[in-house]
């Protein structure tokens, strides 16, 4: 039922590295491609060849510019998908039980056969992870590729979310964030992974790795003071090498 599981043995989720993401949209499109025929198929597209094309996507790539106190700015690309929150109000607000969080792994899903399309769960999601399929009249969302990660018809090494498998820069990682020993948990610890909108206490499972500090000045440079002018420009500089005999 739509009460949330007390504590799931596994907390499967994504870790997204904002230091590496180049904003290429590969994960978003590959997600669309897999899921269009996947567990929540179809991901309907309205007016696909017309004036205002608008379809259902589970993953969207934003791009921001961040300016620090010294006025130095940098560009940050930001993929946004369901964070499979532990305190997922999108689940508790659901009047039908269509919206649920799996006890075994914490994945938040929608059972379309139960969904009445009241949209309340999408209002309850701060992260815009739920997109309503107007044509089908039901709510849809990231399934964490539940039909890939356990899929015995796929080779072992391909049992990953489509977005993770396709990311060309390897900015996306998948694993059990409930297990402190997992690679993703270690990565989060090491890189100081953060929650989005901490203040709302949804306890997202997905974590974001913030961009590393930029190395753009001498202070941070190993080459500090390395380049010492030795050739004088007062006479013809070529003379400096006149006695150098080399071999081929």
């Amino acid at each position, binding site marked *: 039922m739509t*009460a949330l599981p007390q504590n799931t043995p596994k907390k499967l989720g994504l870790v997204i590295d904002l230091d590496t993401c180049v904003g290429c949209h590969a994960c978003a499109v590959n997600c669309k491609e897999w899921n269009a025929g996947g567990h929540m198929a179809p991901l309907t597209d309205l007016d696909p060849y017309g004036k205002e094309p608008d379809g259902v996507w589970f993953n969207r790539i934003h791009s921001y510019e961040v300016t620090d106190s010294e006025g130095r700015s940098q560009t940050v690309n930001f993929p946004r998908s369901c964070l499979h929150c532990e305190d997922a109000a999108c689940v508790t607000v659901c009047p039908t039980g269509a919206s649920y969080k799996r006890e075994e792994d914490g994945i938040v899903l929608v059972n379309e056969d139960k969904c009445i399309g009241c949209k309340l769960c999408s209002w309850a999601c701060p992260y815009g992870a739920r997109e309503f399929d*107007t044509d089908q009249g039901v709510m849809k969302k990231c399934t964490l590729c539940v039909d890939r990660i356990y899929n015995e018809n796929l080779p072992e090494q391909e049992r990953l979310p489509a977005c993770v498998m396709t990311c060309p820069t390897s900015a996306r990682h998948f694993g059990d964030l409930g297990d402190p020993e997992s690679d993703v948990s270690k990565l989060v610890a090491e890189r100081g992974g953060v929650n989005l909108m901490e203040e709302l206490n949804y306890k997202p499972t997905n974590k974001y790795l913030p961009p590393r500090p930029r190395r753009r000045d001498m202070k941070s440079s190993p080459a500090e003071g390395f380049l010492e002018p030795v050739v004088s420009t007062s006479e013809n500089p070529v003379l400096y090498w006149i006695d150098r005999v080399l071999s081929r």
Partner: protein
Amino acid sequence: MHPAFSVILFTTASGAGYGLMALLGALLWRGDLAAETTLQLSTLLIGLVLVTTGLLSSTFHLGHPERAWRAFSQWRSSWLSREGVLAVATYIPAGLLGLTLLFPEMVPLNVKWLGLALAALSLCTVFATAMIYRSLAPVRAWSNQWTVPCYLVLAVMTGAILLNAIVVSAGLIIEDIHLVTWILCLVGYSLKKCYWRFVDLDSNPSTPATATGLNHMGEVRVFEAPHSSDNYLLKEMGFSVGRKHADKLRKIALICGFLLPFGASLLSPVLLSFGVVLALAGVLSATIGILAERWLFFAEARHVVTLYYGR
């Protein structure tokens, strides 16, 4: 948030309906207008019509109305589900009351207790409706202490304005009812002002920086959105209304929704036949005012998801 007409109609109409039935119930509990069966019946009927219209219209914005029955299943966790359950439950005392009033011999039930049940369930239903919004953390304008009182008071107030009109039209004068109406109009007026002061002063702890987890890095500005055309999120939650426009509507809401009805209910009892006209005018004005108020309740509410889009 997108002000969907179905939802506005639902909250306002059912609000007034439940408010009216709550008052009716209270009167019955107190044993007032024991003699006025027709008045009681017509009041009850009007209440039921309003509530039912509201509930029906609320199903229009569902993707699958035919599955609406499923919404009763999650009363343990979901306020929307609870609202559904309570809304239906309210029909029981209402129905029984109707029968008792129509066929006292056949259905000799205690009107007093039915009244109490009716009042209680009506108020609970409105409370549940309010809680749906109250509990949506992503919408600051809703998830605050003013939402529930506003809903409750406005429901009973609109109910009272109606009841006042009914009574006056019936050529009666029932001080308590008129008095209650005056008070509710004033309380409603001040509550709504407090609500607006609150949302205007309220600063959202969520910012583009917290939304992207880049708080420590500085100010975050949108460079490019993920898509060129508006998607569901922006159509549903990206709605925004200009300050000027909103202020105008707020005035309309306050004047038509509270002040005029207040005046109407103040004078209608004393002006006899013209009072009827005045009382009905009060109802009309309240309708306009409260529709405006409810439109703003949605239109002015910002959902945090818009932070991702810099809207």
